C-alpha cells in the first residue's frame, strides 16, 4: 500500500507545484490546498500504513497505527485551513484593489525595487 500512496503523494505534489507556478491567483491558492493534502499523506506514510487498529488503548489490542504522525497531521490540517482562508481573503483584496489576478502584473514596478 505504501508504494501506491507514495505515488499518489508524488502526483499531489506535482499538481500542486504546477498550479503554484501558474499566473492566476486562484490557481495558486488551490495549489497550496493540494500541497497540504500531499504533505499530510506524506507524514502518514513515513510512519507506516499497516496499523490494524486506531491508536486508542483498549483491551487486547497491541498493534495500532502510529499515533505520532496523526497528532502532527491533526495540527497541520487546522493550520493549513487557516493559511487557505488567509490567502483567499488576501487574493480577494488584491483583486479588489488592483483589478487583476495576473501575477505578472502584480509584481510591482521599478520604483518599488
Amino acid at each position, binding site marked *: *500500500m505504501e508504494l501506491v500512496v507514495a505515488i499518489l*503523494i508524488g502526483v499531489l*505534489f506535482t499538481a500542486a*507545484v504546477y498550479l503554484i507556478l501558474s499566473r492566476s491567483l*486562484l490557481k495558486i491558492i488551490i495549489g497550496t490546498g493540494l500541497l497540504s493534502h500531499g504533505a499530510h499523506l506524506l507524514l502518514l506514510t513515513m510512519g507506516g*500504513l499497516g496499523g490494524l487498529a486506531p491508536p486508542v488503548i483498549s483491551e487486547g489490542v497491541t498493534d495500532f497505527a502510529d499515533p505520532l504522525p*496523526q*497528532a502532527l497531521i491533526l495540527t497541520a490540517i*487546522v493550520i493549513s485551513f487557516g493559511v487557505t482562508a488567509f490567502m483567499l481573503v488576501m487574493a480577494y483584496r488584491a483583486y479588489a484593489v488592483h483589478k487583476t489576478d495576473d501575477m505578472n502584473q502584480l509584481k510591482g514596478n521599478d520604483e518599488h525595487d
Partner: protein
Amino acid sequence: MEFVLLIFLPIVAALFIPFLFRKIKGIHTGWFVLIVPVVLFIYYTTFIKTTMDGGHALSELQWIPTLGISFVSYLDGLSILFSLLITGIGALVVLYSIFYLDRNKEKLGNFYVYLLLFMSAMLGVVQSDNVISLYLFWELTSISSFLLIGYWFTRDGSRFGALKSMMVTVFGGLMMLGGFVLLGIMGGTFSIRELIAGSSSFAGHEYFTLALVLILLGAFTKSAQFPFYIWLPDAMEAPTPVSAYLHSATMVKAGLYLVARFTPIFAVSEVWIWLVTGIGLLTLFWGSLFAVKQTDLKAILAFSTVSQLGLIMSLLGAGAITFHVDEALFSFAMFAAIFHLINHATFKGSLFMIAGIVDHETGTRDIRKLGGLMSIMPVSFTVAFIGSMSMAGLPPFNGFLSKEMFLQSMLAIRHFELFNFATWGIVFPVVAWIASVFTFIYSVYFVFKTFTGKRKFETLPLEPHEAPVGMLISPVILAMLVVGIFFIPNVVGKWLVKPAVMAIQPYQYSHPSEVEVHVSAWHGFASVELWMTVGIILIGGLLYLSLSKWQKFYGIQPESLSLNGLYDATMTFSEKGMNRISRLYMTGLIRTYLLYIFAFFSITTIAMLFLQDAFVVDMSSFSKISVYGVINAVILLLAVAFVLLSKTRLGAIISLGAVGYSVALFFVIFKAPDLALTQLVIETVSVALFLLAFQRLPKLSDHGETKSNKLVNGIIALGVGVTVTLVALSSHSQKLVASISQYYKDTVETEAGGGNIVNVILVDYRGFDTLFEIAVLAIAGIGVLGMIKLRLARKESTDENK
C-alpha cells in the same frame, strides 16, 4: 594608570559634543573640543623620558581573550612620536577650525564628532600592538575620513571624493587584514611584538611574500602611493582643517607607520626593499610632476603631499637595507625618514592652513585668479613663504636638513650590493634629483603665484584682507617650528627621532643613543648633496621662470587614459554590470523565484539521496494492498485531474473538495479516525469558504502563459513530485533511530491517564504546540477580518504610487 583607555577618550568626549553644540549657544563648540587633544598631548609628552632611554610602556584591555584579540596600548619611540603628532597637530587644527568654521552656519556638532572619532581611531592605529584591533582602528580612520570629506554633503564633489577615498582605502584595508591573518597563521600570534620576536622562524614560509604584499597594499592605499594616490586630490573637498589634519599630517601617514612598524619582520625580504623604495620614489616623482599642473591651491598641496609621502616611503625602504648591511652609510635613511615625517607635518600643516585662509578671505583657491596678496596679507605670506621654502629644501628651514639627508641616502643606495641594487642603484639618485627639481618648482609656484605679481582683485569674489588673529595662531606656531627645528635638529633627533628609529630597527640598536647620526647643515664644499641642491635651485628656477611655455604640455594626456579615468570607468562598469547581472535572475516575478526554490529542492535532495546511498526501498516492510485503498486512490487521481483540467472556478473548487474528502477516506482506511473527522469538517468549511470567495474573484484564466513556460513549470513540478515520492519511500523503508511513538504508547495510560493516544499527545505531551496552533488561527482570523473590514487609507497609498 591604564592609558589604553585614553585611546577612547576622544570618542567618549564626542558623545557630549552634539549636546554642547545645541545647548550652549554663546561659545564656539571647538573650545570644548580643544581640551581633549591638549590634555592628551601633555600626557603623552611624559612618556618621552621613557622612550629616550629605549624603554616602552604597556597597557592592556582584554576584548576577546579566547581568540587572542585585545586592545593593547604599546608606547615605544615610534608610537609616542605619532601620538604626539596626532594630538599636537590635532590641537592646532581644532584651534584653527574655531575661526575657520562659522558657528552659526556650519553643523559643528557633526564636524567635531567626526574629528574626535578620527582622533581615537588614529591613536588606536599607532598604539595597538594587536593586529586585529589595529585593523579595526585602521578602518575606523577610513570611515571618519569618509564622513569628514563628505561633510558638505550637498556638494557633488564632496560625495564623490568621500566615496572614492572610501573605496580605495577600504580595499587596501581588507587586503591588509588578509595579510594580518596570514601573519597570524605563520607566527601563531596576533601581537606585533611577538611576531617581530619570532619573525626569523617564519621568514621562509610560503605565505611570507603574500602577506608582505597584502600588508603593503594596505599601507600604499592609505598613504596615497602610486597608483592609489588618486583618492587624495579628490579628498580636498573636505573643509581645510580636515585636509591639514587627516590628509597631510596624520591619516595618510598611517601607511608610513605601518611600513615602519613591520620593517623588522619584512626587511629580510628583497621584495620589501624593492617595492617600498621603488614605489616610494615613483610616487615622489609622479606627485611632484603633476603638482605643477594643478591650478587649485589645495590640489597643488594634495599632489605635493602625495609626492612627500613617496619620499618618506622610499626612505623607509632604503632604511631597511641596514638589515642586510650594517654600515654607517645606510643608517641615515631611517633617521631621515622619521625626521622628514616630522618636518613635513609642520610645513605642510602650515601651508594647508594658509591655503584655507586665502580661500576664506578671497573666496577662491584658483591660482589663476590670485596674485599680489603679499601687501594685504603679510603674515600669511610670511608663513606661506617659510613653509614653501622648507618644502623646496632651502636653508634655513627644517626641510633643507631632511632633504639633504634624503639625497645622501639615495646616493648611498648605489653602494648596496645585494638584490641587483649594484646595477640599478644609480637610478635612485637620478630620479630623486629630478623629483626634487619639480618639488622646488611647485613650491615656488604655490607661494609666488599667490602672493606676488599683479593684483587681480576685481576677479575675486570677496574683498581680500588679512585673516583674524585667531586663525593665524596655528600656522604661525607651525612656521616657528619649521625655523626652530633647523637650528636644533639634534635635540629633536635625540628626543623623538632616535627612539623611533630604535623602535623600527630593534635588530640593530638596543638603545637610542646607538643611532649615530648627527644632523648638520654644512658638510663642506666636497659633499655631493650640496651641489645637487645648488643644481635643483638653478634648474628649478629656470624652469619656473619659463613655466608658462611648458605647462601647457600637461594637457596632452587625455582624461580617459588617466588613472582617474580608469577609476571612473571601473566604478561605472561595475555598477552597471552588477545591476544588469542581478536583473538577469531577479525578475521580480514570484514564479521565477519559486522555480529556483523548487529546482534547488529537487536537485539537491535527489543528489544527496543517491550520493549518500540513502535511497532504499524495503518491499517487505510494506503493508498489503487493500481493495478500498486502490479504489480510493483512483478517486483521488481523478479528482486531481479534474482540478487541473477544469475550465471553471466552480469545477476546480468542487474537485478540490473531492480531493479533500478522498484524503479523509484514506485516513479512515489507515485507522486514523480523529484525522478523518477533522478533515471532513475542515474540508466542508474550506469548500464553503471557497464558494463564498469565488464570486468575488475573476474567472479562471492562464493569462496567456506561453507553452514553453508551461512546459518548464511541468518539468519542475514533475521533478518535485518524483523527489517527494522517493523521499516518502526511503523514509518509510529505513529508520535510523527508533520512533518516539513507542514512548507515547507505553506511558499514555500511566503518565497521562488517557486512552486516545492522539488526543493525549495533542493536549498533554504537546500542549504548547496546540496552544500556539490556536494562536496562529486567531492571528489568521484577525488578518482575515482586517482585510475585509479595514480600508487602510487606500487613497494616500495610490497617490504615493503616482
